[in-house]
Every structure is written in structure tokens, then in C-alpha cells.
């Protein structure tokens, strides 16, 4: 058996033995190229990195893409909008409402390096950490849902406000035109 196939069987064997099925994962394809699963993954990941690099040239890596799903569309500021402050806050709240952090960061503890007991302590810390994450994530999810709805409401109201403002301005212009015409007609 080729090295690549043996390695594949080793990787898959653990999972297959757990699931009670026999390992036969595409060994003939791996055998044909002589590559190990790791080599294939490295090759495909490199190809993905190339595609990502080409794609990302127009993107700002640090900013990431806007988290917009389920949110009513952010209204563009009309050129003649009289309330620049409102639109500045709106832009900021749309940009920031999804900036929450729930990365699983577990701080180093020197006690985990103590022989035997350290491993037990590390395991306890890990489980406690996962429990904390569970509750924090529940709260985060709820807060995000509320944020998403509130931002949607503000976006919709602002769009409506701008529409009404434009309509009122138009009506005022019409009224002024009629007034002028009346004044010209009157002796």
C-alpha cells in the first residue's frame, strides 16, 4: 500500500472506527497523484489563498464586510438633506451595531503546568470557559437581534423622514409659486 493511502486510512480510520463503517475514502484518487491528505489540503488551501488575494485587492481587510443580514436598507443621505448630524449617527450605528466579540480567549494559567494536577485544572478551566461562553453567547445573540431590529426601525424612519421632507419642500415651492401668481393677478 502506498504511503498516501496508509496515511489516509490512518486519518479516516479513527473516524470510521467510531462510526462503525469501513474506510475506503477515495484512496484510488489519492493513489493516482501520490499525495497525502495533508498535501492535498495544503495545495487546495494555497489555491484558495491565491483566489482570496486576487479577490481582496478591492477590499479593506481590516474593516471586513458589513453585517447586513435581516436589516432594513441603510438610506443614502440626500444631497440637500438638512440634517447631517442625523446621517452621521445613522452611518455610525449601522457600522457599529454588530461589533460584538465572542472569541474564545482563555488566558494562560501557570497552574496548568503543574505535573498531573495541572492537566486536571486545565480541563476544569476549559469546561468552565465553555459554560461561560454558552451563557454569554445566548445574551449576545439576543442583544444582536434587538440591535438589528432597532437599526432597521431607525433606517426605515429616516428614509420616511427624508421622503416627507422632500415632499414638504416641494409643496412649499408650489405654494410660493401660487402666492406669487396670486399677487401678480391682484390689483
Amino acid at each position, binding site marked *: 500500500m502506498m504511503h498516501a493511502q496508509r496515511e489516509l486510512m490512518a*486519518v479516516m480510520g*479513527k473516524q470510521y472506527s467510531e462510526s462503525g463503517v469501513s474506510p475506503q475514502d477515495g484512496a484510488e*484518487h489519492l493513489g493516482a497523484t501520490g499525495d497525502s491528505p495533508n498535501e492535498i489540503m495544503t495545495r487546495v488551501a494555497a489555491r484558495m489563498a491565491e483566489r482570496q488575494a486576487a479577490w*481582496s485587492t478591492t477590499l479593506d481587510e481590516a474593516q471586513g464586510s458589513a453585517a447586513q*443580514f435581516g436589516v432594513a436598507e441603510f438610506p443614502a443621505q440626500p444631497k440637500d438633506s438638512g440634517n447631517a448630524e442625523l446621517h452621521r449617527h445613522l452611518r455610525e450605528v449601522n457600522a457599529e451595531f454588530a461589533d460584538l466579540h465572542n472569541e474564545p480567549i482563555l488566558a494562560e494559567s501557570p497552574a496548568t503546568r503543574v505535573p498531573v494536577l495541572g492537566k486536571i485544572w486545565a480541563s476544569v478551566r476549559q469546561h468552565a470557559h465553555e459554560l461561560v461562553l454558552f451563557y454569554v453567547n445566548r445574551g*449576545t445573540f439576543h442583544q444582536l437581534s434587538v440591535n438589528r431590529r432597532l437599526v432597521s426601525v431607525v433606517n426605515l424612519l429616516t428614509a420616511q423622514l427624508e421622503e416627507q421632507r422632500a415632499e414638504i419642500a416641494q409643496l412649499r415651492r408650489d405654494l410660493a409659486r401660487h402666492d406669487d401668481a396670486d399677487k401678480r393677478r391682484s390689483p
Partner: protein
Amino acid sequence: MKVAVVTPRYGEHILGGAETMARRFGEELARRGHVVHAYTTGATNHGDLRNDLPAGVATINGVRVERFGLLPIGNRLSHDALLQRILWGVRTTVHEQFAWIGAGAHSPGMYAALESQSPHYDLALLIPYPFPLIHYAAACTRCPAVIWPCLHDEGYAYTEPVRMLLATSAGVQLNSLPEREFMEQRLRVHHPRAHVVGYGVDPVRADAAAFRAKFGIADPFVLYSGRIEVPKNVNVLVDFFKRHKIDHPGPLKLVLMGAGTGVDTDHPDVITLGFQTGADKQNAYAAATLLCQPSINESFSIVIMESWQAEVPVLVHAQCAVTRHHVERSNGGLIFATYADFSQALRTLTVNSELARAMGARGRDYVAREYNWNTVLAKFERAAEDWIGAGMIAARAT
């Protein structure tokens, strides 16, 4: 034409809209004389891809199916945290989004097979978009790779890897016009070779009396069919139904057909049947007074088509552009946004059986006209000419 269908889960007993579509589409293409091979994994569970089925080759309803093993996810804790952030719409950097694609469940055997075998196909159809495996498979495919995304308005869709997958593919196959509008307006992906193909719906031969006899349900009922989960908005359906029963007591029941967790279905008038297939599923459609599809994340919705095949009207959520589009075009049902709409719709369709029948008939005609396999596969073949032509041009250019 020789077509490779690439999808993480494949099989007659696999639950899921996109997975059912991939399988039935492949089978109908094969029946039409095309050569169809499916590349899939041993995974059966939507939420957790792992090797449930053995790797190997089999022929299922005319389609050669090859299953490959999956590597285990390396760091489960950080993968799940990242996935959660993407799903919830927490802001993530482009780097994190690509890291999620890299850290997902992958199948090197499948990738090696696609690298060596895909040049022998006219095109590869990759479905659906949220799985990292689909992104890597697209990068390994050496024939025109067409993405059949089944897009939803959800966290995954707005990530840069997904926008890249769609924009750099040879083509995009879409299920409906609203899905195309979503891709163009919300995701800002304008693909010159994006085609709305749709999906064929199989004729339903249903026996309402057989369903009532087998499951012992004599009362009129509202049917839900699909995953019984919060992301499908089933909690809203159950909640609204319970309120409706307080306001309008009577024999009406809510029958939930499918599997899932996280929804409190404990109520004397809510009946859960579990996952049903074949005749039992079709008979349930015919026996229902109406089918309710509360989900706001659908790219096609097979269940409303199946309900219409049984001439039963549907009730859909106003926030789902796709199901609303179908109902508005067919006039085969009603739309709800609030509890008041929902309750009024139930009253209308349960009291006015003539109106319900007329809506069901209009829905049936709509499905027969728009979503029969001949029409859908003819659209696919026309789109494929465009995709394959584009692939040849791209190959010449490189």
C-alpha cells in the same frame, strides 16, 4: 452532456431542501439522457458534517454516487465560535471569514477526485453555498463550475468568500427571480451568466382519507412540513396558532411533519408526526385544510409547490420575498405578517372552503405551468450552453 453534481449530503433519506433538489435534479437530468455523477460525503446531518455513511460508489436512481470521507474539524471550539459570529451577523474581518472556510469540514479524497476527473465533465454543479467544502471543491474543479447557491438572507451570504464564490464561478443557477434580486441588490454580485432555472416538482398522488385513517386525525388541520426549528420560524407559527386557538376555539389542529429541536410544541391541538416520506407525506398535503410556510429564509420552497400539487392553498410569511413572489404570481394562497393577519387567514380558509379550493386549484395550475420538469430542464439546457461556452472561452484564455 456530462454533469458532476457536488454536494456535501446526498441520498433518498437526507433531509433538506437543497439536498433534495440536488438529488432529484440529478435524477431527472439522467432520465433525460444526460450522464450525471454525484460527488458527496458520508454526512447525513445538516448541522454537523461527519462520516455517518461509508465511503464508496453506488448507483441511485440512474445517478452514479461516490461518497468520500471527511476530515475532522481541527479546533472545534474556535470553529464553532467563528461560525456563530458569522451566522449571527457579528462583524467579522475578511481574514476571519476565509479562516472559517479553511477550518470547516473538508474532504481531500473528493478534492483529489475533482482535480483528476472534472476535466471529463461538461460542467460541475455545486450546491449549496454555505458549506466550506463547496468553496474548496470549486477551487479544485477543472471544468466550468456552476454554483447553485440556494441563497438565503442569512449571515453566511454576506461574507466575502461567498461573494467570491459566486462572482468567480463560470455561472450561477438560481431558483427564483427574488433570489436573483437578493444576490444583485443585497450581496452586490452581478454575474453575467446567472440564470433563473427553478426546480421541477413531482406530481403528487395523494389520498386524504388514507392519511386520516393511518394517523387518526379526523379534524381539519393546518400543516407544516420541514425542519421543526427556530431558524425556520416554526416557533412563530406555533405561537400564533396557540393564540388563535384561545381567540377562536374549535376543532382545528396544527400538524407538524418533520424533525428538529428548539420549538415548544406542547399543546393539545399541536400534533407532531416526525419525519414522513413517500405516500404518507403526499397524503398529508391532500388532507390538510392549508399548508403554512412561516420561514422567511427560502430560495424556492418545495413544500408550497407540493401542497399546491395536492390543490391545497398555502399561507406564507410576508418577509420571505420568494414565497410571497410565488403566492402573488399564482394567487394560490394568503400572506401574513402579524398575528392578526395569520388569524384572519386561518378563519378565511377554514370557513370558506370554496375559496380555499379555488386557491388550491390556481396553485396547482401555477406549478404545472412553471415548475414541471420539462420546462425546468429545458431552461437548464439553455443555461448550460451559455456556461459551457463561457468555460471554453475561459480555458482558451488561460
